[in-house]
């Protein structure tokens, strides 16, 4: 099945956008329908599934113990990985992570890490020796555009769903006690991605818009409206004016999404 957008449709999409409309009826700044489900994988310490239009991403959080990083000996460790699972799109090939899945993981990671969403200071078991290691694995199950926003939402939802086992230290060993504690999450960073098509910015591009865009810009903001991650992608460019407009819109859209999800 070809994934190239037919030229006639390309023109259609672009002409509509010039008039401030999109092929699926949305406004330029509108998101598709967002559905979030949490706790779907019982084997994982935390999990979530997000549907953003038809884009589907699942995230599982696993918690292990391990050594802290040398420059943060009293803090837990966060590691984010993403897989563009071959069944999600005819363009995804099996194999080791390529530049797209690595970029996706790193952008989602930055949003969570820089906003200090997870209270990593509370994840220390034995200072300098043992801490909790949080593995966030992003699993893209269907690609219909805007994997970054969907993955960031799913990752956050999964973290909010994550429970850590209770423990105590007995003779230098970790002993598991009954009961669970929620992972301490204090912020809700939301990534908002724009596509630039014929010099207009559209929020939450779907697959065909992504295929014809010249460039994309992702801006992640936290609950206080601060920017904690920015990533320009694609081989096009933006003017300063477009970047600053996008930042304002991203802040508003993120607040809307938080409100809608009750975060």
């Amino acid at each position, binding site marked *: 099945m070809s994934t190239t957008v037919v030229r006639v449709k390309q023109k259609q999409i672009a002409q509509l956008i010039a008039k401030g409309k999109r092929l699926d009826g949305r406004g330029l700044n509108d998101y598709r329908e967002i559905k979030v489900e949490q706790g779907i994988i019982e084997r994982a310490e935390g999990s979530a599934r997000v549907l953003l239009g038809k884009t589907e991403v699942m995230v599982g959080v696993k918690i292990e113990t391990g050594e802290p990083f040398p420059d943060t000996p009293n803090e837990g460790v966060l590691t984010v990985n993403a897989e563009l699972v071959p069944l999600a799109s005819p363009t995804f090939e099996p194999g080791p992570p390529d530049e797209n899945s690595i970029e996706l993981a*790193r952008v989602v990671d930055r949003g969570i890490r820089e906003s200090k969403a997870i209270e990593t200071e509370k994840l220390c078991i034995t200072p300098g020796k043992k801490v909790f290691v949080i593995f966030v694995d992003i699993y893209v199950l269907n690609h219909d555009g805007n994997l970054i926003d969907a993955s960031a939402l799913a990752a956050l939802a999964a973290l909010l769903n994550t429970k850590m086992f209770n423990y105590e230290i007995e003779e230098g060993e970790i002993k598991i006690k009954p009961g669970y504690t929620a992972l301490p999450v204090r912020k809700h960073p939301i990534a908002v991605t724009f596509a630039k098509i014929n010099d207009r910015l559209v929020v939450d591009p779907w697959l065909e818009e992504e295929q014809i865009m010249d460039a994309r810009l992702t801006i992640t903001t936290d609950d206080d*409206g601060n*920017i904690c*991650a920015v990533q*320009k992608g694609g*081989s096009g*460019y933006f003017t*300063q004016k477009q970047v600053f407009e996008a930042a304002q819109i991203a*802040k508003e859209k993120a607040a809307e999404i938080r409100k809608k999800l009750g975060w």
Partner: protein
Amino acid sequence: MSQKTEKLIDKKGLRLDGRKPDELRPIKIEVGVLSNADGSAYIEQGKNKILAAVYGPKELHPKHMALPDRMVLRCRYHMAPFSVQERKSPAPSRREIELSKVIREAIEPAVFVEYYPRTAIDVFIEVLQADGSTRCTSITAASLALADAGIPMRDLVAACSAGKIEDTIVLDLMDVEDKVGTADVPVAYMPNLGVITLLQMDGILTIEEFEKAVNLAIEGCKKIYAMQKEALKAKYISVKEVEE
């Protein structure tokens, strides 16, 4: 956060290397330094030592990877094992893979890719010594290597970072400032069209601080752009002077 509470900016408002907040590190540029590559450039920016080389355009094999109506641009950003404090494994890290992608996307808008269908250009960037904002220095070097290879370009691409350290927005971050500071904003800019081809940020900034940082980085890019032009002309001008 780092255990050392070393001040990044002292009472006189100077940074650890004596610079003012809006000052660039000293930059040295040389174009055409490798005899085998079709184009090359070497840049020293503070303690950064970066070499960029371009091979191509050349026919792309395997043929199915070629594009029928344009050129393919491939980019590899790589750090030498001895370039950083703790030896880095030569295998490409996730960071190098991401940087290879964003660097390619930063220089591609400058190249007339439609001119040479079915060909490829390889851009190789080797970081010989790293001290912060290496992706910016790399883009500046790669852009010169492309021009040195005679590849038709819309404009040169200049790149520079800005960031926030201890409540001050500063230009051209060194490694310690990036690690200990609150935000890092690398920017690549094509001054003719006035457009941004690379933009990333990690850290925390208000929208106003972000705007300030981006604007400051662009001022840095413009200064670096002027140096790029001088470097490209340098070897031709010296011959001209001999004759006069």
